[in-house]
């Protein structure tokens, strides 16, 4: 089981979901969110996230684009199709302008390149949770 509870939720029952196949990235993001007092759950893949049933309690989704199996953009499309509007922040090393526009058009809150500005990420997450 890759997702973990770090802190009890502050605002309602909303968590931040982290979806990234890279262990280091997941760990770093969890650490960062903990430092700013946000609770987070990490998932190894989009499939794991979808299969967990935590979608309703997720206040914000931080996802990588390039993953084995379902990609981040496909996950976004899937959630949209299920009318599960979770504010999503994409972080990826592969962002080109076209992909960025596509993601934003499909409802992404933010599209950040790796390595990302942590301040920008935290602000985006807070904004997403307060929606």
């Amino acid at each position, binding site marked *: 089981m890759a997702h973990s509870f770090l802190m009890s939720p502050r605002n309602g029952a909303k968590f931040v979901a982290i979806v990234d*196949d*890279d262990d*280091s*990235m997941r*760990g*770093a*993001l969890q*650490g*960062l969110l*903990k*430092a*700013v007092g946000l609770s987070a759950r990490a998932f190894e893949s989009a499939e794991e996230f979808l299969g967990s049933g935590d979608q309703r309690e997720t206040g914000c989704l931080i996802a990588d684009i*390039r*993953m*084995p*199996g379902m*990609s981040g953009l496909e996950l976004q499309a899937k959630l949209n199709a299920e009318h599960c509007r979770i504010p999503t922040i994409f*972080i990826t*090393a*592969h962002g080109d302008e076209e992909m960025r526009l596509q993601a934003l058009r499909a409802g992404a809150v933010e599209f950040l390149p*790796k*390595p*990302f500005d*942590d*301040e920008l990420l935290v602000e985006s997450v807070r904004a997403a949770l307060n929606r």
Partner: protein
Amino acid sequence: MAFALRYGLALISVAVAAGVARAFLHFHLPQPFAAFALSAIAITFWYAGTAPGVLAAVLSSLVRDYFFEPDTNIESRVLYDLVFLIFAVLMTRVARARDELEVRVAERTAELTQSNDNLRREIAEHNQAEYLTSQVFESSPDGVSIVGTDYRYKRVNPVYGRTWGMRADQIVGMHVADLWGIEAFERKNKPFLDLCFTGANVSFAGWVDNSLGRRHFALSYSPLRSDSERVEAVLVISRDLTEQTLASEALRQAQADLAHASRMTALGELTASLAHEVNQPIAAAVTGASTCVRWLTRDNPDLEEAREAALGVVRNARRAADIISRIRSILKKGESKRLLVDINEVIREIIALLRNEADGHTISIRTDLDASLPKVLADPVQVQQVMMNLIMNGIDAMKDLDQTRELSIRSQSAGDRELMISVSDNGVGLPRQQADQIFDAFFTTKPHGIGMGLRISRSIVEAHGGRLWAADNSPRGASFYFTLPTKVEPL
């Protein structure tokens, strides 16, 4: 001799004898018919044969009886007849002996002629052999020399002379040490020559410094014996291999350069995904560092958390450095270094490097690695190059596949002398008619391919003592297999 002539001779000779005897009588000389008759008989036997001879004897007897001594008594007549008879018999013998002699002479002549012909033929053959040997000696492209037991040159051919920048006749008579130098003689020539003098055939190949520079020679020493069992001289044949050796070294260098270029090209193609690969840990490290700062700039800094975050930074930075050094080692030029390696570890490393490339094409990599495999003596960089080639080919083959794209990598034992690695995909499969050609140089089905990947992979595998081959996968796709010899553990 013709019949008429033979019997005619009998008649004529007797007639002549009679005539001459008559003439003697006429001149009142004692008549010598008997003597002349015997001559006539002898002549007839000799030249005309037995029967005419007998006829001559009979005729002589008759002529004598009726022409010359008609009055003698019967006793004297019989006596003279006997004389002629005995003479005739003797002449028969003489004639026979002569005939025998003639036969023997003919035989002897035939023998001699035959023997003469044989000798002539032998001489001709010998001359021919001499000529050919001389031709071989003189026109051989190799240096040929004959050295005697006194270590002096007995004969050398023109090529040998040219090797030393001298004429052949100048070298004949020289001591080997005079030509090669006393040191080379003591160290190289003399031991080989001595060994050959004992009857052994000796070969030697190596670099030699002589007055014309540094040359690579292959030398063979053969003992030469005349009729006795003793070795009297040594035939030395030397071939100058300098050009070939330099060419083969140049070729080897060119192959190494090509393999290197192919590595660079493959890695160039992977740049984007390799950059991504390195980027992950760097991004994680940056995040970790920021997190660490946050913990420290709070009103109540949490040192424990800060420490955790900092450790994470170290870990990720190391990971990034690791990936870079792995990429570097693949790029490195140089001699192959073989070590005892765990093949599964080698496979895992290259998969880690290429994982992102596979992800980008939505390809899942499945591994089935036998943990009990023994170590192999191999150059891990080269094996990774082969794996990289096979994996990239597999990824390319599945690029346009609609269904699940899966790359299977398996390692297993193949008997007690080998292990086998297979890379299988469910992509487009091997080209129908050209299944054998895929390993040829410059064969490619990719629009921007060079076509050297499989060729180089195969030569790497074969250089390690293994085999690389391909087979169709069912229901679709291709599998590439290669074997590597396993190190036999000493008991």
